[in-house]
């Protein structure tokens, strides 16, 4: 847990253990988990009685009923299965980019290696959701993507894998152009089993709405319950830029000259609002969840305020 100390505060983990992911659908896994499956299985939860047929597990034979009624019944129980939780963390350059002016290099971080709060929060959230999944015996897979899947971990189970999860996230690096649609279209990228998919990203999709449609279609095609976590830094939400600027895209490194005035900033905010509305609408149309979390929001607020408020996390 050496790396996890950085990403998530240690006292945060017990709180996470008391939480669980609230998947709306019954899940079907291959291994037993804590999730109630649609199928009958071997949990302790009673489901139904069934007339004994030869070959049934004699351990399930209900001797009590047989002694009173003489009829052979077997008790059936609900099958409790694990949930497959897939985490996709956007690690394109935009996630790590800090809005900076070349004319005024940050004194605290002259090399420009200052970590973006957006990237930090995205990983913290991913780690929290992942830990919650692990601690509730769900199957967890995690992947970092930019244009394709950059890195991924094999499917993990149990809290013992938390260390791997944390160190994976700890070591993840940003870079390259990001494209959710392209990354998910790569063979093998999509989760094989239905489950819950979380995408942590700033959703600066070059392809715009079209790309989002495609990505969401791919995910819903595999029976995923998708949660889009939109993480935006404060500068992106309310830019404080002024003067004559050449805006350089962190991913494409192409410049755009603009004389920033109050009018331009107002236009930007208007455009941002429109973009968020679009994301939210697209998700709602597909029965998916969309939340916006500003990067400067404390983790607790994000977890208990936003995610719990959206019904995605229950205590």
């Amino acid at each position, binding site marked *: 847990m050496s790396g996890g100390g950085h990403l998530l505060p240690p006292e945060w983990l017990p709180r996470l253990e008391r939480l669980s992911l609230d998947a709306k659908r019954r899940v079907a896994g291959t291994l037993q988990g804590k999730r109630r499956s649609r199928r009958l299985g071997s949990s302790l939860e009673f489901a139904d009685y069934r007339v004994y047929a030869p070959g049934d597990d004699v351990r399930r034979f209900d001797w009590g009923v047989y002694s009173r009624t003489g009829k052979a019944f077997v008790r059936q129980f609900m099958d409790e299965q694990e949930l497959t939780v897939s985490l996709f963390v956007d690690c394109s350059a935009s996630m790590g980019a800090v*809005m900076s002016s070349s004319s005024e290099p940050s004194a605290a971080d002259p090399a420009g290696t200052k970590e973006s709060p957006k990237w930090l929060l995205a990983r913290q959230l991913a780690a929290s959701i992942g830990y919650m999944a692990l601690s509730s015996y769900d199957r967890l897979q995690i992947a970092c993507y930019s244009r394709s899947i950059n890195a991924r971990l094999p499917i993990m189970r149990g809290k013992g894998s938390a260390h791997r999860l944390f160190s994976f996230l700890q070591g993840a690096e940003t870079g390259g152009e990001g494209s959710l649609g392209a990354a998910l279209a790569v063979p093998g990228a999509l989760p094989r089993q239905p489950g819950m998919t979380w995408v942590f990203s700033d959703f600066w999709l070059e392809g715009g709405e079209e790309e989002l449609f495609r990505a969401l279609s791919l995910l819903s095609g595999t029976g995923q319950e998708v949660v889009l976590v939109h993480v935006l830094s404060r500068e992106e939400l309310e830019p404080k830029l*002024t003067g004559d600027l050449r805006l350089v895209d962190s991913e494409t490194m192409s410049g*755009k000259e603009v004389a920033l005035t109050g009018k331009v900033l107002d236009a930007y905010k208007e455009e941002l609002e429109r973009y968020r509305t679009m994301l939210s609408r697209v998700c709602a149309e597909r029965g998916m969840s969309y939340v916006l979390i500003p990067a400067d929001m404390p983790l607790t607020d994000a977890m208990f305020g936003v995610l719990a408020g959206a019904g995605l996390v229950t205590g």
Partner: protein
Amino acid sequence: MGIQSWLSLWFGLTLPAIVLMYMFKRKYVDTTVPSHLLWERVLRNLEANRPWQKLQNRLLLWLQLLAAALMVFALMQPFLQVSGGGSAHVVIVADTSGSMSAQIQPSAEGEAATRLQWMQERIKEYVKNQGRRSEITLLSVGASPMTLVSHESDRTVIDKAVDGLRPYYGQASYRETLSLASALTREERDAEVVIFTDSYWKQDTAPITFQVPVSVEKVQGELPLNVSIDQFGISPKGETGSSYGAVAVLSTNAKESMSAEVNLYGDEQLLTSKMLELEPGKKSTESFSDLPFAEVYRLELSQDDGYAADNQSFAFGLGHGSSRVLLLTSGNLFLEKALQLSGAEVTRVALDESKDKTAEDNGSADKEAGKGSTAADVPPVPEGEFDLLVIDGDVPEGFKQGKWAELAAKTPLWTIGGEGAKVGNQGGRAVLSKHPVTAYVTLSGVYFGTLVEQAPAWGEPVIKLGDQPIVYAGSENGRPRLSFHFLLQDSDLPLSPEFPVMVSNALEWMTSGKGSGLGRYMAGAQADIPIAADTVAAKWVPTSGLALTGGIPAAEALRNEQGISPVQLVPEYPGLYAFEQQNEAGENLRFWLAVTADPYEANWSNDQGPVVSQAAPNLDESEAGEHAGTSGSNETANRAGSLMPWLAVFALAVIAAEWGVYQRGRSI
């Protein structure tokens, strides 16, 4: 407000240059943003209307343009006509010289007005607008500068003074008036001088320097047509003086030849009328002959022209052809002959004979009573008017009283010898002063024996023998007097060939004022007027010409301690005047006097405004042209009139604001 240097407007090209620089300017601060996605969408609209879009919302550009415009404006050396509300004291110089009475072309209303009337309107307008908060001093150009109002702020008084402006036809004191205006404003800080003029000023080489802003307002109008009578004279032609001839010289300022009709009046009776052809730039001489005698002749242009002051001219007929001289002598053939030779009718009264005669008549034995010791000895005054009284030798006592004294008082008097201590000739050469009597005379080699020591108060010595004055000439009560301080018998002067010349000179000089016409004087000049001894009142009465038509009231004559002054200022309006003297008995004695305008005022070929310069460097535009040679106009003006300091302060403020913009790095 005005601009002194329009040339600097060329610097205005810097303004579009700045705009161009902005349009081609590429200086953006690189700023990393996570994604262009939204910015691109935002800018798509803004970039649609390039490049003018760039110019919008650029405070820095506008500030720089403003600063540059201010600098260009400053280079143009603007100034504010501070007369509008600035100067506390405005000195208005009104040119009221004769040329201001010229008619200018009728205005739109069809009302013909003189330049002076126009100027009055302009001055009133000026006082009402530019000088509404100023104290006004109004100067006009007369024989000497006239201060009509001084430091006046009551508008009605000023308007009244302006309305009271009249043309002055005499020799106008242009330079003196400007000098006074300059002196009035010398010590004042917040004053200015405005000169209203038709700009026909006498050539003046040295400019009058002012310490305060000075401007020239031209009141000129179109050049009017003028026909002027330059000369007009009368001379007797016949032996008996029954026939007279007249000569007139006329000229015009018309561009082409024209004809003018002149009428000649004698004592207001039309004598003759002539049509004259006048060539431009030439003087036309016309003579009239066989004119009857008249006291006053008047030559008049039959039609009006632009300048009325020279449309009439007067001349005076001589009562008779030759001078009449009353000679009181005990017998002096040389003198009598010399007078007769000079054309005088000599009436001789023999002093000795008269004494004998009276003695015989009375049968008195009192022969020892002395010459003229009683009135009874004195012969009666001969009948008729005399132009000159010559007393040769001692004057008998009887001739100093009664009718003789009256005659002596009103007739030019020439005394030879006379009373006084007899002194010997101390030798020495004859020294002659310049005087009509001494013309063509040298007196070299003439011997003088005994002299009479006498120093009359009425005249100056014109001939001295070394230090001893021997001939005095002057005037007493306005009449010429001549006194020889030696008896002709005690000198060999009568034998000299110069004697008749001298007598002729003396006769001519002493009878020049004969007749009732005193001659022709320029307006406002001084004239010696013969004042009768018993005169109690005298006045100038306009009788003809511009003076009469102009409605000039009769003016009282000047007085001094002794009564009516023999030295009078002639009236200022051209025309014919009668100088009427009244004695106690109520009898009137009148002399004619013609007043003419300064001929310079009719000469409008010289359009040369007043030459003024300002000591303070900000030279006014109106005289900048006329006075191109004046240096020092490029120095920084620090007077109230200049806008330069204000512009500099404003430009600095703009630059300061610009600095703020630079520091913040904002567009707006």
